[in-house]
């Protein structure tokens, strides 16, 4: 029996992770802590999980910890887990500053604790297949990449510059950066970004476009906008157009969906593909049982956060900057 604690339920992904855990055998969710008592109580009722007043006590009685608090408070909760010697799965982005991210990796390392990053997209079978296609030489030499991670404007703390650490650029840069780092075995070396608050009346940016240079030589663009309207039948996308000298590949990670037209509930697209959150949680359980290095780890979180920080710096300075 694996015992898992949940620290922070600010991110809606936390709900998905708990539901994934509940579908698995030999798992006990020891409890949920959130500094926002009403948010904690709502989540506990909805998920059927025990609320806890003291995160340290909760962690002490658990084998592993999942952190899905606001971006800016990831560090605090990861530190609680690390000090107690418990492996931890942390929501993305890893933190809202490089200093926090480095401190998190360091404290986990010092306490011999594995830090897994919640980059579920990398667990997609299509992403894995894309890597096989690339390494198998079917595209020839990869020469450029065009990515998107669109979404709806999430509202709430996501639009709070302190709690979220930014807007769409902070929220939607890291997934695609992470899969490209893995697909091409590269790092991001240069960034140009332009963004703005164009659609919604919020204090952070909702639309952004980025141009990257990769350590393997290619250029890549990314659209990280919260630009899916409420009327859109689906939440958004993660896509990557990979152009090679011998061919091209279009990856559309969440495109396994059916169209639903309901007189009662309106129109929506429903995904029937592999549950990537479940695949990622299964990896976390392996980390807990076998002490293996996580497939997506703290350093992956740090590297993608550095790209985000460089994007903000690029816009302030109006030029291409180094990561």
């Amino acid at each position, binding site marked *: 029996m694996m015992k898992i604690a949940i620290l922070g339920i600010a991110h809606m992904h936390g709900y998905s992770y708990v539901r994934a855990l509940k579908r698995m055998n030999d798992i006990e969710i020891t409890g949920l802590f959130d500094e926002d008592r009403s948010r904690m109580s709502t989540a506990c009722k909805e998920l059927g999980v025990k609320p806890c007043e003291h995160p340290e006590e909760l962690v002490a009685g658990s084998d592993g910890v999942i952190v899905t608090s606001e971006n800016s408070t990831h560090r605090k909760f990861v530190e609680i887990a690390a000090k107690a010697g418990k492996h931890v799965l942390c929501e993305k982005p890893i933190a809202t500053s490089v200093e926090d991210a480095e401190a998190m990796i360091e404290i986990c390392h010092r306490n011999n604790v594995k830090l897994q990053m919640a980059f579920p997209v990398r667990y997609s079978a299509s992403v894995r297949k894309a890597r096989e296609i690339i390494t198998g030489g079917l595209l020839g030499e990869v*020469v*450029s990449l*065009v990515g*998107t991670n669109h979404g709806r404007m999430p509202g709430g703390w996501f639009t709070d510059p302190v709690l979220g650490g930014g807007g769409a650029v902070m929220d939607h840069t890291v997934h695609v950066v992470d899969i490209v780092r893995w697909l091409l075995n590269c790092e991001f070396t240069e960034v*140009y970004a*332009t*963004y*703005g608050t*164009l*659609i919604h009346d919020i204090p952070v940016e909702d*639309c*952004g*476009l*980025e*141009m990257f240079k990769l350590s393997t030589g290619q*250029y*890549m*663009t990314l*659209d990280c*906008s919260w*630009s*899916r*309207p409420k*009327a*859109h039948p689906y939440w958004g996308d993660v896509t990557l*157009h990979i*152009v*090679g*000298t*011998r*061919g*091209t590949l279009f990856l559309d990670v969440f495109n396994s969906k059916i169209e639903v037209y309901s007189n009662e509930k309106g129109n929506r697209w429903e995904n029937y593909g592999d549950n990537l959150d479940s695949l990622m949680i299964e990896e976390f359980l392996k980390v807990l049982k076998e002490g293996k290095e996580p497939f997506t780890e703290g350093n992956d979180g740090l590297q993608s956060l550095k790209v985000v920080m460089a994007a903000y710096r690029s816009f302030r300075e*109006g*030029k*291409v900057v180094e990561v």
Partner: protein
Amino acid sequence: MHSIAILGAGMMGNVHARAYRAMGEISSLWIVDPVESRAKAISEKYGANVASFEEVLENGVIDIVDICTPTFTHGELAVRALEAGKHVFCEKPVALKIEEARAMDGAAKKSGRKFMVGHVVRFFPQYIRVRELAFAGDIGEIVMARLYRGGSFPSHGIDNWFADIDKSGGVFVDLSIHDFDFLRKLLGPVKTVEARSVALSSERKKDSFDHGMAILRFESGALAHVEGSWAEPAGMPVNFGTFYEFVGTKGMITNSYERETTLRLQTSIDGKPKYSQENTAYYDPYAEELKSFILSIDEDREVPVNGQEAVESLRVALAANLSAKLHRPVELSEVF
């Protein structure tokens, strides 16, 4: 009734000849091409007279010259035709350099003849709808756009001229200029362009730009991403496609060539498998474009895409080329 001389018997020359013939308002059609066999083919297919450019200029009956030649030849042909008193329709891109495009526009103004440039995307119905919907306010104010246009490399060009960036301008100038033009018309002037482009090495090519990505920021604050591609392998069942997405303050409009198929054919005759997908219609955007030009002459009014507009769209494409060359964002004001 007009007498029209088409310069260039390549792909666009054929498209235009067919469109003119379908109109039925043409008294005579002429074709000019240095390659005799190409001129002859069009002559036979569409009932055109073969002539030299000099003969066209001297022939007082011919009142319209339609330039369908490779881009690097546009400037001289247009200026000479305008000076000879012809109305001129010129395929896009208007030219490779701003000075040359301005000289063409200047020659048109001086001659008092009509001069139109073939930014045909403005006449494609799925793009006309976008402008209608934008005008109607269905999705609020458009603040962001993504456009893709691409396929396999255009190897049909005579002497492989598309492969030479000094002759075609590369993928931004030859292909993405359609999207730059459409966006400019929809969102107003461009302020900054950040672009990169790569050549897909091939023995048949000089250093071309075959795949390009451009990030545009407009003076209004709107953002756009434009991808142009000649990077698809040759011989694919579907060798060209476009995609767009326009995001407004109250919704979005999107369309992809992958979903606008009215016919899908799979067949195998004598062991030769064939796949095709088509979106067939009677409406021909090229014919509509040419009709609008002829109507502008008949009614003596402004053409839908004049030289000044073509210059502005070329500036955006050249800014993308400059950014891709210098690896830095380029202000449109740097390109003049």
